[in-house]
């Protein structure tokens, strides 16, 4: 649906204001967020449109404004995808403007008549957030709020939980991609900058005064930095921003993650043993993200156990304990241990590398992303070095233990 908007040239002329190259880069990337929002309509207004096969059948005026059409232009009969493209080129300024007005998030409703003739209304959530990296926008299609005018029953807690995890999974997948690419590109870019700078300094040292050569080398530095900046912005655009940190009992989160993995665990006849610390194990986390990490580690373990011949015990142990990190902070340590044959000496040192995978499916970014999630929570994720006698694989992540508020 986003077409090839990524190819919009960075230097596209603009009459709006003078732009530094960085701004242009910034603009292209922001425009490329598939989740635009711009709301000239008053915030409390309900924005609604009815679509048939992606074509706008009817829309209220605020929808037209939202999608970049002036009220005088007709919006009916146009493809939503086209409007979106049109609109998105204007999005960043509007985002900034909205953000400056304290915009946080709001909902719009899209009604669609689908192939079977059912009239569905979808709730779409638009969300703008500002953090120190700049502005982020999210647009999430949520569930049907009405089918043929009938309102479906309210979501059960279970359903809501599933939706939260599914959303976290989608965001994680996107984040995996971009963080992997960012890392892989940053290394060679940094090396290019080093070589070019080294050349400049060597020419200077040896008294070579070649203006053209020097300028070309400077350009290599500037252009590489520009590329690195694009990578950085790409990363900041897709990074999970809907990061909701709240205090949770870690054992509760781990149990729910194990529940979620129940199907693959059962399919592979894997038994899960838990040994959780008694009492206080509260951590301040985004529960969706930590659930994701746990599920990922469990799935990895299941994959390893599946290679065992029939009859061998297939067990995963999930253990928690309280420990202190190198700066003596109290942490909760979580070990996910499988009884498979252990990682080979070839794989073990490389498993955290982006795009490194021991399976025939998957991108090889799960552990990279998991590590990023854990580190953003102030913890660490590592593979514990196995001792020679043991054939198990033990992944350990840590999270800072929440200090009880009563502590002086």
């Amino acid at each position, binding site marked *: 649906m986003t077409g090839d908007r990524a190819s919009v040239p960075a230097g596209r002329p603009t009459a709006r204001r003078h732009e530094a190259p960085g701004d242009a880069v910034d603009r292209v990337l922001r425009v490329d967020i598939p989740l635009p929002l711009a709301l000239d309509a008053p915030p409390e207004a309900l924005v609604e449109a009815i679509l048939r096969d992606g074509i706008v059948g009817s829309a209220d005026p605020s929808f037209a404004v939202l999608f970049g059409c002036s009220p005088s232009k007709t919006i009916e009969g146009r493809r939503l995808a086209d409007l979106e493209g049109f609109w998105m080129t204007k999005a960043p300024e509007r985002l900034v403007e909205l953000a400056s007005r304290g915009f946080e998030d709001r909902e719009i409703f899209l009604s669609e008549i689908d192939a079977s003739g059912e009239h569905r209304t979808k709730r779409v959530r638009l969300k703008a957030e500002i953090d120190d*990296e700049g502005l982020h926008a999210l647009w999430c299609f949520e569930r049907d709020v009405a089918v043929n005018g009938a309102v479906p029953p309210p979501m059960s807690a279970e359903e809501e939980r599933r939706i939260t995890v599914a959303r976290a999974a989608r965001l994680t997948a996107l984040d995996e991609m971009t963080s992997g690419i960012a*890392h892989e590109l*940053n*290394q*060679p*870019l*940094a*090396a*290019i*900058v*080093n*070589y070019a*700078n*080294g*050349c400049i*300094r*060597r020419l200077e*040292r040896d008294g070579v005064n070649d203006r053209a050569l020097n300028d070309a080398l400077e350009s290599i530095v500037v252009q*590489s*930095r520009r590329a*690195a900046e694009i990578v*950085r912005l790409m990363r900041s655009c897709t990074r999970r921003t809907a990061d909701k940190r709240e205090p949770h009992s870690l054992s509760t989160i781990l149990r729910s993650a194990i529940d979620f993995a129940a199907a693959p665990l059962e399919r592979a006849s894997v038994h899960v043993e838990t040994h959780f610390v008694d009492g206080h194990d509260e951590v301040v986390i985004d529960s969706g993200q930590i659930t994701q990490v746990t599920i990922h580690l469990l799935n990895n373990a299941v994959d390893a156990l599946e290679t065992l011949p029939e009859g061998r015990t297939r067990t995963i142990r999930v253990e928690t304990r309280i420990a202190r990190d*190198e*700066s003596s902070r109290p942490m909760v340590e979580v070990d996910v241990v499988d009884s498979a044959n252990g990682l080979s000496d070839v794989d073990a*040192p*490389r498993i*955290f*590398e982006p795009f490194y995978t021991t399976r025939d499916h998957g991108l090889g970014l799960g552990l990279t992303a998991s590590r990023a999630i854990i*580190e*953003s929570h*102030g913890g660490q994720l*590592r593979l514990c070095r196995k001792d020679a006698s043991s054939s198990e694989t033990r992944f350990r992540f840590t999270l800072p233990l929440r200090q009880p508020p009563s502590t002086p």
Partner: protein
Amino acid sequence: MNSQPTVFIVDDDPAMRDSLGFLIGSVGRKVEAYDSAEAFLEAYDNERPGCIVLDVRMPGLSGLELMEKLQEDRFAPPVLLVTGHGDIPMAVRALKAGAFDFIEKPFSDQLLLERIQQALQQDDQDRASERNRAEIERRAERLTAREREVFELVVAGNANKVVATELGLSQKTVEVHRAHVMEKMRAESFADLVKMAVVLEVTGPPRSTE
């Protein structure tokens, strides 16, 4: 013996390692590169002056783990950690673990070379004060038990008379011991002697009221 300091580069990425060496070498610094923390430790000799430019993320022993190991060695050269952009938690952890500084990738060459310069200065100072301390220790070892007592009491600010009473000696004897202390410690003044006591962390009893 090794007057020219070395910049030790530890990075698993061959392009980063080589390009860093090329850049740092371009200002005439001596460079040695290692592709893993393990390889570095293998060759590690704490008597060689320099600094370490260390990639925080490496397979095997990570940058932080290497730092933890080096922390145990007070002769270890300062460490400049190279972190990914915006990896603030990692940077904080590095500083807490005793890193001299951290640099975000991709970095400005100016900044990197400046930091290296500062780290080398730090290392030089550390080594000088370490040499100084070792020398003072060597001198202090030549003091007799009695002289050591007198030394501790006078640097704590006690007058000869007080020292004499404290040790049950005549004031004259204390003066003789004191002269020996000055001579053996090669102190040029009483202030000099007190400075040495500070380096040795000698703390006598507090000055008694007269």
